[in-house]
């Protein structure tokens, strides 16, 4: 049984403990499946492997815990989904994912809540989402106030500066920007 970490263009990156399976211009970066118990440390270990890989190449991260029977199954996967995976890799080329969470101090407590305050916060969230989307190649709102942005590597600094500027201009809201992540939220069109 093997575990698939990521899909890249062939030839795949070389890294200790990992092997690549190639087919039709794509590569699956795999390891033998680990019996590692899931924990925060284990998840960070996975992320560190992906961090190292994404320094050298563009990749599509594969959902954690995805296993296949053997290398042949990985080869078939690349063959069967070549068009979809190739198109996704082209879309994320040279870009990373940045996550932004914005929360208002006013919501979340105060009983039934003030509808007008809620709407005002919501409007501002939309405006900020738009301001950040302008610097991104693509954006996705994962949940209210929680968005993911596909940002070209060259634009990361400008993007983070814009988050900082928004934070300064909206002192009543709290901001959290994390990344760069592999494009977890942008693997499908």
């Amino acid at each position, binding site marked *: 049984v093997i575990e698939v970490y990521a899909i890249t263009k062939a030839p795949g990156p070389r890294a200790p403990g990992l092997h690549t399976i190639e087919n039709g211009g794509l590569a699956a970066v795999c390891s033998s499946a680990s019996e590692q118990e899931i924990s925060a440390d284990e998840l960070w270990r996975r992320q560190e492997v992906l961090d190292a890989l994404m320094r050298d190449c563009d990749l599509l991260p594969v*959902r*954690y*815990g995805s*296993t296949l029977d053997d290398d042949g199954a990985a080869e078939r996967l690349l063959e069967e989904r070549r068009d979809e995976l190739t198109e996704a890799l082209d879309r994320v080329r040279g870009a990373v994912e940045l996550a932004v969470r914005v929360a208002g*101090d006013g919501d979340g407590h105060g009983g039934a809540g003030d509808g007008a305050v809620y709407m005002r916060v919501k409007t501002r969230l939309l405006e900020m989402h738009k301001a950040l989307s302008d610097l991104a190649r693509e954006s996705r709102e994962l949940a209210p*106030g929680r968005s993911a942005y596909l940002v070209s590597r060259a634009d990361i600094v400008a993007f983070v500066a814009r988050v900082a500027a928004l934070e300064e201009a909206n002192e009543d809201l*709290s901001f959290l920007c994390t990344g760069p*992540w*592999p494009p977890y939220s942008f693997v499908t069109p």
Partner: protein
Amino acid sequence: MSTLADRDVALVDLIDRLLGGGVVIAGDITLAAADVDLVYVGLRALVTSVATAEEKGLLGPLQKTALERSAL
């Protein structure tokens, strides 16, 4: 994500992404729902250091919601 505190705060985003994002392949997802709960419990164990972030106003109601899921 260089300092420990940053990592703790970023863990919510990491879990959302590793377990909810990425390419879904036609294989077995070895992770059972119970395992996901365990991750959130692990996350809860880290919340003590996140409390510092909360004091600084880094965590809003949305993150707290994510953390509360660990209590389920």
